[in-house]
Protein backbone atom coordinates (compact mmCIF):
# COMPACT_ATOMS: atom_id res chain seq x y z
CA UNK A 1 0.00 0.00 0.00
CA UNK A 2 2.70 2.38 1.03
CA UNK A 3 4.80 1.31 -1.92
CA UNK A 4 1.94 2.11 -4.28
CA UNK A 5 1.51 5.57 -2.80
CA UNK A 6 5.19 6.25 -3.15
CA UNK A 7 5.05 5.05 -6.73
CA UNK A 8 2.15 7.40 -7.50
CA UNK A 9 4.00 10.31 -6.01
CA UNK A 10 7.13 9.54 -8.04
CA UNK A 11 4.96 9.45 -11.16
CA UNK A 12 3.40 12.78 -10.38
CA UNK A 13 6.83 14.28 -9.63
CA UNK A 14 8.15 12.94 -12.91
CA UNK A 15 5.36 14.69 -14.81
CA UNK A 16 6.05 17.92 -12.95
CA UNK A 17 9.74 17.65 -13.75
CA UNK A 18 8.94 17.12 -17.41
CA UNK A 19 6.82 20.27 -17.44
CA UNK A 20 9.64 22.24 -15.80
CA UNK A 21 12.31 21.14 -18.27
CA UNK A 22 9.90 21.93 -21.11
CA UNK A 23 9.55 25.48 -19.79
CA UNK A 24 13.36 25.77 -19.68
CA UNK A 25 13.67 24.43 -23.24
CA UNK A 26 11.03 26.83 -24.46
CA UNK A 27 12.88 29.73 -22.85
CA UNK A 28 16.19 28.89 -24.51
CA UNK A 29 14.62 28.02 -27.85
CA UNK A 30 13.37 31.62 -27.82
CA UNK A 31 16.86 32.91 -27.05
CA UNK A 32 18.43 30.89 -29.87
CA UNK A 33 15.71 31.65 -32.40
CA UNK A 34 16.93 35.07 -33.67
CA UNK A 35 20.49 33.73 -33.88
CA UNK A 36 19.37 30.66 -35.86
CA UNK A 37 17.61 33.06 -38.21
CA UNK A 38 20.72 35.23 -38.53
CA UNK A 39 23.31 32.45 -38.95
CA UNK A 40 22.95 31.75 -42.73
CA UNK A 41 23.26 35.41 -43.78
CA UNK A 42 26.03 36.07 -41.23
CA UNK A 43 27.96 33.10 -42.57
CA UNK A 44 27.47 34.27 -46.18
CA UNK A 45 28.58 37.80 -45.34
CA UNK A 46 31.69 36.49 -43.58
CA UNK A 47 32.64 34.45 -46.66
CA UNK A 48 32.40 37.60 -48.76
CA UNK A 49 34.20 39.90 -46.34
CA UNK A 50 37.00 37.47 -45.50
CA UNK A 51 38.00 36.85 -49.14
CA UNK A 52 40.09 40.03 -48.97
CA UNK A 53 41.82 38.92 -45.75
CA UNK A 54 41.22 39.32 -42.01
CA UNK A 55 38.86 41.98 -40.65
CA UNK A 56 39.80 44.70 -38.18
CA UNK A 57 37.96 45.04 -34.88
CA UNK A 58 36.05 48.18 -35.97
CA UNK A 59 35.10 46.54 -39.31
CA UNK A 60 33.69 43.59 -37.40
CA UNK A 61 31.74 45.90 -35.10
CA UNK A 62 30.14 47.81 -37.96
CA UNK A 63 29.33 44.55 -39.74
CA UNK A 64 27.29 43.03 -36.90
CA UNK A 65 26.10 46.07 -34.90
CA UNK A 66 22.68 46.64 -36.51
CA UNK A 67 21.56 43.04 -36.40
CA UNK A 68 22.80 42.48 -32.82
CA UNK A 69 21.14 45.63 -31.49
CA UNK A 70 17.93 44.69 -33.32
CA UNK A 71 17.97 41.29 -31.59
CA UNK A 72 18.45 42.96 -28.20
CA UNK A 73 15.59 45.38 -28.89
CA UNK A 74 13.10 42.94 -30.36
CA UNK A 75 13.58 39.87 -28.18
CA UNK A 76 10.93 38.86 -25.68
CA UNK A 77 13.59 37.18 -23.57
CA UNK A 78 15.46 39.06 -20.80
CA UNK A 79 18.77 39.31 -22.66
CA UNK A 80 21.52 41.23 -20.88
CA UNK A 81 23.85 41.25 -23.85
CA UNK A 82 24.52 39.80 -27.27
CA UNK A 83 27.12 39.79 -29.99
CA UNK A 84 29.48 37.93 -32.22
CA UNK A 85 33.06 36.84 -31.64
CA UNK A 86 35.30 36.11 -34.62
CA UNK A 87 38.14 33.57 -34.45
CA UNK A 88 41.33 35.44 -33.49
CA UNK A 89 43.12 34.15 -36.60
CA UNK A 90 40.62 36.10 -38.71
CA UNK A 91 41.14 39.47 -36.95
CA UNK A 92 43.90 41.74 -38.26
CA UNK A 93 43.98 44.06 -35.28
CA UNK A 94 41.70 45.16 -32.49
CA UNK A 95 39.24 43.03 -30.60
CA UNK A 96 37.66 39.87 -32.07
CA UNK A 97 34.68 40.52 -29.84
CA UNK A 98 31.74 42.64 -31.06
CA UNK A 99 29.45 42.34 -28.07
CA UNK A 100 26.97 44.73 -26.45
CA UNK A 101 25.80 44.59 -22.84
CA UNK A 102 23.68 46.37 -20.28
CA UNK A 103 20.73 48.70 -20.34
CA UNK A 104 22.62 51.22 -22.48
CA UNK A 105 23.76 48.52 -24.91
CA UNK A 106 27.40 49.44 -24.37
CA UNK A 107 29.98 47.95 -26.70
CA UNK A 108 32.46 45.99 -24.59
CA UNK A 109 35.65 48.03 -24.60
CA UNK A 110 38.17 46.74 -27.10
CA UNK A 111 41.09 47.87 -24.94
CA UNK A 112 39.99 45.55 -22.15
CA UNK A 113 40.43 42.63 -24.50
CA UNK A 114 43.51 44.00 -26.17
CA UNK A 115 45.13 42.54 -29.23
CA UNK A 116 48.34 40.85 -30.23
CA UNK A 117 50.34 39.53 -27.31
CA UNK A 118 47.78 40.65 -24.76
CA UNK A 119 44.80 39.14 -26.57
CA UNK A 120 42.33 37.51 -24.31
CA UNK A 121 42.46 33.76 -24.27
CA UNK A 122 39.13 32.92 -25.88
CA UNK A 123 39.87 29.28 -25.35
CA UNK A 124 39.62 29.85 -21.61
CA UNK A 125 35.99 30.92 -21.99
CA UNK A 126 33.48 28.08 -21.92
CA UNK A 127 30.94 29.86 -24.15
CA UNK A 128 33.59 30.12 -26.86
CA UNK A 129 35.50 26.90 -26.31
CA UNK A 130 32.61 24.42 -26.34
CA UNK A 131 30.84 25.41 -29.60
CA UNK A 132 34.25 26.02 -31.20
CA UNK A 133 35.46 22.49 -30.47
CA UNK A 134 32.18 20.55 -30.79
CA UNK A 135 30.64 22.55 -33.66
CA UNK A 136 27.38 22.52 -31.72
CA UNK A 137 25.46 25.20 -29.91
CA UNK A 138 25.93 25.46 -26.18
CA UNK A 139 24.78 27.25 -23.04
CA UNK A 140 27.67 28.07 -20.70
CA UNK A 141 27.28 28.68 -17.01
CA UNK A 142 26.21 29.66 -14.55
CA UNK A 143 29.57 31.43 -14.24
CA UNK A 144 30.77 34.69 -12.67
CA UNK A 145 31.39 36.96 -15.64
CA UNK A 146 34.15 39.00 -14.01
CA UNK A 147 35.32 40.36 -17.37
CA UNK A 148 32.16 42.16 -18.37
CA UNK A 149 28.83 42.02 -16.58
CA UNK A 150 30.12 41.38 -13.04
CA UNK A 151 27.11 39.15 -12.63
CA UNK A 152 26.31 35.48 -12.62
CA UNK A 153 25.61 34.67 -16.28
CA UNK A 154 24.31 32.04 -18.60
CA UNK A 155 25.82 32.60 -22.04
CA UNK A 156 24.02 31.08 -24.99
CA UNK A 157 26.42 30.48 -27.86
CA UNK A 158 26.13 29.24 -31.40
CA UNK A 159 28.93 28.34 -33.82
CA UNK A 160 28.93 30.18 -37.15
CA UNK A 161 30.44 27.96 -39.81
CA UNK A 162 31.92 28.47 -43.25
CA UNK A 163 32.41 25.26 -45.28
CA UNK A 164 32.00 23.21 -42.12
CA UNK A 165 34.67 25.18 -40.26
CA UNK A 166 33.74 27.21 -37.16
CA UNK A 167 34.82 30.80 -37.87
CA UNK A 168 33.17 32.52 -34.93
CA UNK A 169 30.59 32.34 -32.18
CA UNK A 170 27.34 34.32 -31.97
CA UNK A 171 25.44 34.47 -28.73
CA UNK A 172 23.67 36.20 -25.90
CA UNK A 173 23.96 36.65 -22.14
CA UNK A 174 21.14 35.97 -19.70
CA UNK A 175 21.69 37.00 -16.09
CA UNK A 176 20.83 34.17 -13.71
CA UNK A 177 18.83 36.62 -11.59
CA UNK A 178 16.64 37.48 -14.61
CA UNK A 179 16.37 33.83 -15.53
CA UNK A 180 15.28 33.02 -11.97
CA UNK A 181 12.58 35.68 -12.14
CA UNK A 182 11.29 34.25 -15.42
CA UNK A 183 11.48 30.52 -14.68
CA UNK A 184 11.35 29.80 -10.96
CA UNK A 185 7.60 30.61 -10.78
CA UNK A 186 7.14 27.75 -13.26
CA UNK A 187 8.82 25.27 -10.92
CA UNK A 188 5.67 24.33 -9.05
CA UNK A 189 3.75 21.17 -8.37
CA UNK A 190 6.30 19.42 -6.23
CA UNK A 191 8.79 20.37 -3.56
CA UNK A 192 12.49 20.60 -4.11
CA UNK A 193 13.02 20.92 -7.84
CA UNK A 194 16.42 21.94 -9.10
CA UNK A 195 17.65 22.92 -12.55
CA UNK A 196 21.27 21.86 -13.04
CA UNK A 197 23.65 22.09 -15.97
CA UNK A 198 25.31 19.01 -17.44
CA UNK A 199 28.05 19.23 -14.79
CA UNK A 200 25.54 19.12 -11.96
CA UNK A 201 25.88 22.83 -11.18
CA UNK A 202 22.71 24.39 -9.82
CA UNK A 203 21.12 27.09 -12.00
CA UNK A 204 17.93 27.69 -10.02
CA UNK A 205 16.20 25.65 -7.34
CA UNK A 206 13.19 25.46 -5.07
CA UNK A 207 15.16 23.10 -2.81
CA UNK A 208 16.34 24.84 0.40
CA UNK A 209 19.37 22.55 0.43
CA UNK A 210 20.73 23.99 -2.82
CA UNK A 211 21.85 27.43 -3.90
CA UNK A 212 22.70 28.64 -7.37
CA UNK A 213 26.32 27.71 -8.06
CA UNK A 214 26.35 24.64 -5.79
CA UNK A 215 26.97 21.23 -7.26
CA UNK A 216 24.58 18.41 -6.49
CA UNK A 217 25.70 16.14 -3.72
CA UNK A 218 26.53 12.62 -4.94
CA UNK A 219 28.31 14.05 -7.99
CA UNK A 220 31.64 13.16 -6.43
CA UNK A 221 34.50 13.72 -8.84
CA UNK A 222 32.18 12.98 -11.79
CA UNK A 223 31.68 15.79 -14.24
CA UNK A 224 28.45 14.52 -15.78
CA UNK A 225 24.96 13.61 -14.64
CA UNK A 226 25.27 10.08 -16.04
CA UNK A 227 26.05 8.43 -12.73
CA UNK A 228 23.78 10.48 -10.53
CA UNK A 229 22.16 7.36 -9.15
CA UNK A 230 18.83 6.23 -7.79
CA UNK A 231 18.49 8.99 -5.19
CA UNK A 232 17.39 11.40 -7.87
CA UNK A 233 14.60 11.63 -10.41
CA UNK A 234 16.18 13.24 -13.46
CA UNK A 235 14.65 14.80 -16.57
CA UNK A 236 17.32 15.78 -19.05
CA UNK A 237 16.69 18.22 -21.85
CA UNK A 238 17.09 16.84 -25.36
CA UNK A 239 18.12 20.22 -26.77
CA UNK A 240 20.06 22.02 -24.04
CA UNK A 241 22.77 21.06 -21.52
CA UNK A 242 20.39 21.05 -18.57
CA UNK A 243 18.31 18.72 -16.44
CA UNK A 244 15.63 19.18 -13.82
CA UNK A 245 16.15 16.93 -10.82
CA UNK A 246 14.31 16.14 -7.60
CA UNK A 247 15.23 13.81 -4.77
CA UNK A 248 13.46 10.44 -5.13
CA UNK A 249 11.07 9.97 -2.23
Amino acid sequence: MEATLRHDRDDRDARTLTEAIEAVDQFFAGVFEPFEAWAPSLSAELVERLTSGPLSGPQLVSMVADRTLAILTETERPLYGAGFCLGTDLISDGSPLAWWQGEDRTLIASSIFGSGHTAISLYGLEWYRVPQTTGRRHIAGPFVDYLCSNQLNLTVSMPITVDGRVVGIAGADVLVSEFERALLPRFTGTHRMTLVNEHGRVVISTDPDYETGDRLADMGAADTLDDLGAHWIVRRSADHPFAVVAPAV
Partner: protein
Amino acid sequence: MSISEVTFTPHRLRSAAFAPIGDEGRVQLVEGRLVQAISTGAFREGERLPSESELSRHLGVSVDTVREALGLLRSAGLIETRRGRTGGSFVSTSAGAVEDFNTRALLRMTRLELSDLGAEYEIVSAGCAEYACRRATSEDLDAVERILQDAWELPPDAWRQRITAAQLELAALSQSVRLTADHVRLQSEFTPLLALQDADRLQRRFTHEQVIAQLEATRRGEVVVVTSAVRTAIRNSVRWLVEYRSRLLAAEDARGQHPAHTDRGA
Protein backbone atom coordinates in the same frame (compact mmCIF):
# COMPACT_ATOMS: atom_id res chain seq x y z
CA MET B 1 46.70 32.88 -33.08
CA SER B 2 47.27 29.41 -31.69
CA ILE B 3 46.40 28.65 -28.10
CA SER B 4 50.02 28.23 -27.09
CA GLU B 5 50.79 31.82 -28.16
CA VAL B 6 48.04 33.32 -26.07
CA THR B 7 49.19 35.06 -22.92
CA PHE B 8 46.98 35.63 -19.96
CA THR B 9 46.54 39.27 -19.23
CA PRO B 10 44.58 40.00 -16.05
CA HIS B 11 41.77 41.54 -18.07
CA ARG B 12 39.55 41.97 -15.07
CA LEU B 13 42.10 44.34 -13.58
CA ARG B 14 41.91 46.33 -16.79
CA SER B 15 38.15 46.57 -16.73
CA ALA B 16 38.23 47.51 -13.02
CA ALA B 17 40.66 50.27 -13.93
CA PHE B 18 38.47 51.52 -16.76
CA ALA B 19 35.06 51.47 -15.12
CA PRO B 20 33.27 54.85 -15.46
CA ILE B 21 34.33 57.52 -12.97
CA GLY B 22 31.73 60.29 -13.30
CA ASP B 23 32.51 63.89 -12.44
CA GLU B 24 34.12 64.15 -9.02
CA GLY B 25 37.85 64.56 -8.32
CA ARG B 26 38.53 63.73 -11.89
CA VAL B 27 42.24 64.20 -12.53
CA GLN B 28 43.33 62.43 -9.34
CA LEU B 29 40.83 59.63 -9.90
CA VAL B 30 41.97 59.12 -13.47
CA GLU B 31 45.57 59.19 -12.30
CA GLY B 32 44.73 56.63 -9.62
CA ARG B 33 43.07 54.30 -12.10
CA LEU B 34 45.95 54.49 -14.56
CA VAL B 35 48.46 53.91 -11.77
CA GLN B 36 46.38 50.91 -10.75
CA ALA B 37 46.38 49.54 -14.31
CA ILE B 38 50.15 49.89 -14.60
CA SER B 39 51.23 48.94 -11.08
CA THR B 40 49.14 45.76 -11.03
CA GLY B 41 50.82 44.65 -14.24
CA ALA B 42 47.51 44.77 -16.15
CA PHE B 43 49.67 46.64 -18.67
CA ARG B 44 53.23 45.46 -19.00
CA GLU B 45 56.48 47.34 -19.61
CA GLY B 46 56.48 48.98 -23.03
CA GLU B 47 52.82 48.25 -23.66
CA ARG B 48 50.72 51.01 -25.20
CA LEU B 49 47.87 52.44 -23.15
CA PRO B 50 44.55 53.16 -24.88
CA SER B 51 44.46 56.52 -26.67
CA GLU B 52 43.40 59.72 -24.88
CA SER B 53 40.02 59.68 -26.61
CA GLU B 54 39.46 56.00 -25.82
CA LEU B 55 40.33 56.58 -22.16
CA SER B 56 38.04 59.58 -22.03
CA ARG B 57 35.22 57.45 -23.41
CA HIS B 58 35.77 54.50 -21.03
CA LEU B 59 36.24 56.62 -17.94
CA GLY B 60 33.48 59.11 -18.78
CA VAL B 61 35.66 62.20 -18.36
CA SER B 62 36.91 64.87 -20.78
CA VAL B 63 40.00 64.42 -22.94
CA ASP B 64 41.57 67.38 -21.06
CA THR B 65 41.20 65.53 -17.78
CA VAL B 66 42.81 62.42 -19.25
CA ARG B 67 45.64 64.51 -20.70
CA GLU B 68 46.30 66.16 -17.33
CA ALA B 69 46.38 62.80 -15.56
CA LEU B 70 48.73 61.34 -18.17
CA GLY B 71 51.01 64.35 -17.51
CA LEU B 72 51.15 63.41 -13.81
CA LEU B 73 52.04 59.82 -14.71
CA ARG B 74 54.76 61.06 -17.03
CA SER B 75 56.26 63.18 -14.23
CA ALA B 76 56.17 60.14 -11.96
CA GLY B 77 58.18 58.25 -14.59
CA LEU B 78 55.47 55.63 -15.09
CA ILE B 79 54.78 56.33 -18.74
CA GLU B 80 56.60 57.61 -21.80
CA THR B 81 54.96 59.52 -24.60
CA ARG B 82 56.00 58.95 -28.20
CA ARG B 83 54.93 61.16 -31.05
CA GLY B 84 53.91 60.24 -34.56
CA ARG B 85 51.57 57.79 -36.21
CA THR B 86 52.62 54.86 -34.00
CA GLY B 87 52.85 57.19 -31.01
CA GLY B 88 50.87 57.35 -27.79
CA SER B 89 51.46 56.65 -24.11
CA PHE B 90 53.51 53.60 -23.24
CA VAL B 91 54.27 51.99 -19.89
CA SER B 92 57.79 53.12 -19.02
CA THR B 93 60.53 50.82 -20.25
CA SER B 94 63.22 52.43 -18.12
CA ALA B 95 64.53 49.76 -15.77
CA GLY B 96 62.54 49.42 -12.59
CA ALA B 97 60.31 52.51 -13.06
CA VAL B 98 57.13 50.65 -12.11
CA GLU B 99 58.92 48.75 -9.33
CA ASP B 100 60.28 52.02 -7.90
CA PHE B 101 56.79 53.44 -7.93
CA ASN B 102 55.38 50.39 -6.13
CA THR B 103 58.25 50.46 -3.62
CA ARG B 104 57.45 54.07 -2.74
CA ALA B 105 53.82 53.03 -2.24
CA LEU B 106 54.96 50.29 0.17
CA LEU B 107 57.10 52.74 2.12
CA ARG B 108 54.25 55.24 2.42
CA MET B 109 52.09 52.58 4.08
CA THR B 110 52.36 52.00 7.79
CA ARG B 111 53.14 48.49 8.89
CA LEU B 112 49.64 48.40 10.35
CA GLU B 113 48.04 49.28 7.02
CA LEU B 114 50.10 46.60 5.29
CA SER B 115 49.21 43.84 7.70
CA ASP B 116 45.54 44.86 7.76
CA LEU B 117 45.36 44.76 3.96
CA GLY B 118 47.02 41.34 4.15
CA ALA B 119 44.45 40.14 6.68
CA GLU B 120 41.52 41.16 4.49
CA TYR B 121 43.09 39.66 1.38
CA GLU B 122 43.83 36.45 3.27
CA ILE B 123 40.25 36.02 4.47
CA VAL B 124 38.57 36.91 1.18
CA SER B 125 40.94 34.69 -0.80
CA ALA B 126 40.47 31.79 1.58
CA GLY B 127 36.70 32.27 1.47
CA CYS B 128 36.69 32.27 -2.34
CA ALA B 129 38.95 29.23 -2.35
CA GLU B 130 36.67 27.33 0.03
CA TYR B 131 33.59 27.95 -2.11
CA ALA B 132 35.51 27.13 -5.29
CA CYS B 133 36.61 23.88 -3.68
CA ARG B 134 33.00 22.91 -3.13
CA ARG B 135 31.72 24.12 -6.47
CA ALA B 136 34.35 23.82 -9.24
CA THR B 137 34.15 21.10 -11.88
CA SER B 138 37.23 19.40 -13.29
CA GLU B 139 36.63 21.21 -16.59
CA ASP B 140 36.77 24.54 -14.70
CA LEU B 141 40.04 23.50 -13.11
CA ASP B 142 41.53 22.37 -16.42
CA ALA B 143 41.07 25.95 -17.62
CA VAL B 144 43.04 27.24 -14.60
CA GLU B 145 45.71 24.61 -15.18
CA ARG B 146 46.16 25.88 -18.75
CA ILE B 147 46.81 29.37 -17.40
CA LEU B 148 49.59 28.02 -15.17
CA GLN B 149 51.09 25.72 -17.80
CA ASP B 150 54.66 26.80 -18.64
CA ALA B 151 54.16 29.91 -16.46
CA TRP B 152 57.25 29.16 -14.38
CA GLU B 153 59.49 29.45 -17.45
CA LEU B 154 58.31 33.02 -18.15
CA PRO B 155 60.02 36.27 -17.10
CA PRO B 156 58.84 37.51 -13.68
CA ASP B 157 56.33 40.11 -14.98
CA ALA B 158 54.68 37.65 -17.37
CA TRP B 159 54.74 34.99 -14.64
CA ARG B 160 53.05 37.39 -12.23
CA GLN B 161 50.28 38.04 -14.80
CA ARG B 162 49.62 34.31 -15.04
CA ILE B 163 49.52 33.92 -11.26
CA THR B 164 47.16 36.89 -10.93
CA ALA B 165 44.93 35.48 -13.69
CA ALA B 166 44.90 31.99 -12.13
CA GLN B 167 44.08 33.35 -8.67
CA LEU B 168 41.26 35.44 -10.10
CA GLU B 169 39.87 32.51 -12.06
CA LEU B 170 39.97 30.33 -8.94
CA ALA B 171 38.18 33.08 -7.00
CA ALA B 172 35.46 33.28 -9.68
CA LEU B 173 34.91 29.54 -9.39
CA SER B 174 33.40 30.30 -6.00
CA GLN B 175 30.36 31.19 -8.15
CA SER B 176 29.87 34.18 -5.88
CA VAL B 177 29.60 37.57 -7.57
CA ARG B 178 30.22 39.45 -4.33
CA LEU B 179 33.23 37.42 -3.24
CA THR B 180 34.74 37.69 -6.72
CA ALA B 181 34.21 41.48 -6.74
CA ASP B 182 35.90 41.75 -3.32
CA HIS B 183 38.74 39.62 -4.60
CA VAL B 184 39.24 41.86 -7.64
CA ARG B 185 39.24 44.99 -5.47
CA LEU B 186 41.80 43.56 -3.06
CA GLN B 187 43.90 42.10 -5.84
CA SER B 188 44.06 45.53 -7.50
CA GLU B 189 45.32 46.98 -4.25
CA PHE B 190 47.69 44.19 -3.24
CA THR B 191 49.21 42.96 -6.52
CA PRO B 192 51.54 45.98 -6.91
CA LEU B 193 53.02 45.10 -3.51
CA LEU B 194 53.09 41.35 -4.15
CA ALA B 195 55.02 41.99 -7.36
CA LEU B 196 57.85 43.50 -5.30
CA GLN B 197 58.75 39.94 -4.28
CA ASP B 198 59.26 38.82 -7.83
CA ALA B 199 62.97 39.52 -8.07
CA ASP B 200 63.36 37.00 -5.23
CA ARG B 201 63.36 33.67 -7.07
CA LEU B 202 62.80 31.58 -3.93
CA GLN B 203 59.80 33.68 -3.04
CA ARG B 204 58.39 33.27 -6.54
CA ARG B 205 58.93 29.52 -6.35
CA PHE B 206 57.06 29.42 -3.05
CA THR B 207 54.10 31.39 -4.44
CA HIS B 208 54.01 29.21 -7.55
CA GLU B 209 53.99 25.99 -5.58
CA GLN B 210 51.25 27.23 -3.27
CA VAL B 211 48.99 28.07 -6.23
CA ILE B 212 49.61 24.61 -7.72
CA ALA B 213 48.90 23.04 -4.31
CA GLN B 214 45.67 25.05 -4.08
CA LEU B 215 44.62 23.88 -7.55
CA GLU B 216 45.36 20.23 -6.85
CA ALA B 217 43.63 20.22 -3.48
CA THR B 218 40.63 21.96 -5.09
CA ARG B 219 40.45 19.07 -7.56
CA ARG B 220 40.39 16.62 -4.68
CA GLY B 221 37.78 18.70 -2.84
CA GLU B 222 40.00 19.08 0.25
CA VAL B 223 38.70 22.31 1.76
CA VAL B 224 41.09 22.38 4.71
CA VAL B 225 44.17 21.87 2.53
CA VAL B 226 42.96 24.50 0.06
CA THR B 227 42.30 27.24 2.58
CA SER B 228 45.51 26.51 4.43
CA ALA B 229 47.55 26.75 1.18
CA VAL B 230 45.97 30.11 0.38
CA ARG B 231 46.42 31.53 3.85
CA THR B 232 49.99 30.28 4.23
CA ALA B 233 50.98 31.84 0.91
CA ILE B 234 49.48 35.23 1.73
CA ARG B 235 50.91 35.34 5.25
CA ASN B 236 54.29 34.42 3.86
CA SER B 237 54.07 37.29 1.36
CA VAL B 238 53.00 39.81 4.00
CA ARG B 239 55.85 38.72 6.23
CA TRP B 240 58.29 39.09 3.35
CA LEU B 241 56.94 42.59 2.60
CA VAL B 242 57.17 43.63 6.27
CA GLU B 243 60.83 42.60 6.36
CA TYR B 244 61.57 44.16 2.98
CA ARG B 245 59.98 47.42 4.09
CA SER B 246 61.99 47.44 7.33
CA ARG B 247 65.24 46.83 5.45
CA LEU B 248 64.55 49.68 3.03
CA LEU B 249 63.62 52.08 5.81
CA ALA B 250 66.74 51.15 7.78
CA ALA B 251 68.89 51.70 4.69
CA GLU B 252 67.33 55.12 4.10
CA ASP B 253 67.87 56.11 7.71
CA ALA B 254 71.49 54.97 7.52
CA ARG B 255 72.02 57.15 4.44
CA GLY B 256 70.46 60.05 6.32
CA GLN B 257 67.75 60.49 3.73
CA HIS B 258 64.27 61.60 4.54
CA PRO B 259 62.41 58.33 4.43
CA ALA B 260 59.28 58.40 2.32
CA HIS B 261 57.16 57.38 5.30
CA THR B 262 57.76 60.74 6.95
CA ASP B 263 55.76 62.37 4.14
CA ARG B 264 52.70 61.86 6.22
CA GLY B 265 54.35 63.34 9.28
CA ALA B 266 54.95 59.94 10.90
